[in-house]
């Protein structure tokens, strides 16, 4: 059953490989093939998710080698949910309207393949490879409309991301140099045997390099300067994908690394400081944003910083908070970017626009309120758990962290409230046409998802806590991934074949 998990990567991959020739044969089939594959991928992910929810996380090896030698997938609640969510998000933001010869659907499929790989893989270099798949696909997506200045956005993203990737690869090399393995579980075991290994300068430098490298996509501080320009220039669907989905993928890699290798080494502090700086700069910059798009870009930076802070707490409440905030952000940001496409004018010119589209605007308000953390919307539970996580964390000086979180949250509330009151102001200068149907549908569905999440919070909360516990469970992760006889790699399939060969010859 769980062996099929590789299909989560392969299905979109095969589809992407064959889409171009298929389009030449039969454009109609090619048009529906992409979404169909994504749907089947989502269904497979949900099946596996249910399986895992019942039986607990599982490890899947490839090639029949014992795991430290080869690459393995680790299927847990968070990873599987992320795969399913990635599929759903892509489906919602699917480029239905592009010309038939565009390669955009292929890029979407490849993004999905990469996302699935990132969510599931338990091998450091393999994670890097899948991350690059996602990264390159996102360069393509940003550049897709092919008009001059959007190409610049793509180049800017590319320069940042490629520089970051090189640094991250350097970090991976340092880790391999120290630990002699690339399997996260195996490295975790090495770290558990020798506590000083990763708390050395080399170890922590490796983490810093990877943090900065992945921080490009995770929108963390020293590497997030591409955000306002790229989100300001690229199409709303793509901005939504980058802010909503891709950033979470980068963060997930960091988290796996942090908790399997770097628990108790001080790497948490590095992540915490990075997160706090990101949070502060992002929210402050959003305060004076002149356009909705810009505001969303900066607020996205702030939110990602908040996520980093939450995850750096390393306790169950903090991680659950991070997961919930991430889910909240994933549901909301793409929709908000779609709105921003409609409300492109400077914020000062948006007076009273909300009255022309009452229902859509109500959804907008709901989403913004959830971002602000107003009960009983999911964002509130995220903030609540976050405070709980920070206040239970053993690190000193958490009072300052709380103060900073509260301050930035307040700043966020102020600029969002200014926006909302303007949107609902009396006078409507010149009504902007309502959301187009292809934008309305995903917005409505995302809003419905948000409402469902709010109503089902009781049910979700147990799964969130389970997911957080699984993410933090180092020994379970290792036990699942590393077989008991580590020193004697056994190749079951291989020995089986060898046996037959010895007995009866082989064709």
């Amino acid at each position, binding site marked *: 059953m769980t*062996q099929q998990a*590789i299909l989560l990567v*392969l299905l979109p*991959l*095969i589809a992407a*490989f064959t889409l*171009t*020739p298929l389009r*030449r044969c039969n454009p109609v089939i090619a048009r529906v093939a992409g979404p169909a594959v994504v749907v089947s991928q989502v269904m497979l992910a949900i099946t596996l998710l249910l399986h895992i929810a019942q039986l607990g996380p599982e490890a*899947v090896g*490839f*090639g*029949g080698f014992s795991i*430290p*030698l*080869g*690459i393995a997938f680790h299927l847990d609640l968070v990873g599987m949910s992320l795969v399913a969510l990635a599929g759903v998000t892509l489906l919602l933001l699917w480029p239905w309207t592009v010309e038939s*010869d565009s*390669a*955009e659907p292929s*890029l979407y499929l*490849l993004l999905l393949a*990469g996302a699935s*790989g990132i969510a599931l*893989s338990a091998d450091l*270099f*393999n994670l890097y*490879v*899948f991350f*690059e*798949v996602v990264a*390159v*696909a996102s*360069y*393509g997506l940003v*550049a*897709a409309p*092919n008009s001059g200045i959007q*190409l610049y956005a793509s180049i800017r993203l590319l320069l940042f991301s490629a520089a970051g990737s090189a640094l991250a690869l*350097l970090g991976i090399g*340092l880790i391999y*140099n120290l*630990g*002699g*393995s*690339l*399997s996260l579980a*195996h490295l975790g075991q*090495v770290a558990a045997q020798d506590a000083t290994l990763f708390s050395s*300068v*080399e170890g922590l430098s490796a983490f810093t390099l990877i943090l900065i490298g992945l921080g490009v996509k995770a929108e963390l501080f020293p590497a997030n300067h591409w955000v306002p320009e790229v989100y300001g220039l690229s199409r709303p669907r793509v901005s939504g994908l980058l802010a909503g989905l891709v950033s979470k993928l980068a963060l997930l890699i960091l988290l796996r690394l942090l908790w399997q290798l770097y628990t108790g080494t001080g790497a948490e502090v590095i992540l915490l400081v990075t997160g706090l700086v990101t949070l502060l700069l992002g929210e402050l910059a959003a305060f004076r944003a002149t356009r909705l798009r810009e505001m969303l870009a900066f607020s996205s930076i702030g939110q990602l910083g908040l996520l980093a802070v939450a995850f750096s707490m390393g306790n169950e409440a903090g991680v659950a908070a991070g997961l919930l905030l991430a889910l909240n952000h994933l549901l909301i940001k793409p929709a908000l970017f779609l709105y921003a496409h409609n409300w492109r004018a400077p914020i000062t010119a948006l007076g009273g626009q909300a009255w022309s589209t009452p229902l859509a605007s109500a959804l907008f308000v709901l989403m913004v309120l959830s971002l602000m953390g107003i009960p009983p919307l999911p964002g509130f539970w995220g903030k609540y758990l976050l405070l709980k996580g920070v206040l239970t964390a053993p690190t000193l000086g958490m009072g300052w962290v709380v103060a900073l979180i509260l301050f930035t949250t307040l700043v966020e509330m102020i600029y969002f409230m200014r926006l909302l009151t303007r949107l609902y102001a009396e006078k409507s200068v010149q009504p902007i046409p309502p959301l187009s149907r292809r934008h309305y549908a995903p917005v409505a569905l995302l809003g419905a998802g948000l409402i469902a999440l709010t109503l089902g919070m009781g049910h979700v909360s147990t799964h969130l806590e389970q997911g957080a516990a699984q993410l933090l469970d180092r020994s379970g992760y290792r036990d699942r991934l590393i077989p008991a006889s*580590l020193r004697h*790699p056994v*190749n079951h*399939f*291989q020995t089986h*074949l060898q046996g037959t*060969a010895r007995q009866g010859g*082989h*064709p």
Partner: protein
Amino acid sequence: MTMRRNLASLIFTVGLGLMLVSLMQGSHTAFPVEVGQNINAAGFADHGAANLVTSVVLGYRGLDTLGELTILFVAATAAGMVLGHCPGGSTPPVRGGFILATAAELLFPFLILLGAYIIIHGHLSPGGGFQGGAVIAAAYYVPLLAGSGRLFSEDTGSLIESLAGVGFIAIGLLALWGGGEFLAPLYSHNGAPGALLSAGTLPLLYLAVGLKVGSELASLLARLGGIGMEVDDDA
């Protein structure tokens, strides 16, 4: 001003370099490596490939290779999308003259042959799908540079691309559906170690890699080469 800035930059760069050196040092002192040694010990038996790097690339870390093919595919797709179809018409922008063109024409079969050789012997000696694929791509690119007018056919290229990619996955899935795990070695010892026909499906995988890399690089280069670019006056 510029002088001072350059000096600052120099100091900065040297400092960064020294810092990196200090990080990269000491690599071989405490080295609890097990994985590499284990592969060195077991790889030959597992795959029967004389080139252990090949068994790592295609066997132990086959998924990475698939990912890497994917990246190349993504890059080629995105570049194709950005550049559009056959930009600049079917003729190369630069005409190289008779001697160059003829030489390039003459070189073409040899390069193809060399590439094929490198691919096919990937499991035995240094080389393999990537290197061979790059040589094959060069075989198409040299004429383009020389201006002999031979342009890579995009349709055939994309067909080969997708067939090779699907082929790689199919070989992996064959093992999965045969009851094993994805990309498990099939029929590893159907030949003497070191013989051309050995190492199970690894040569087939490398063939797929070689075709895919070759066609993708070739189409990428063809597209890039198809566009003329004036000298930038800003630089």
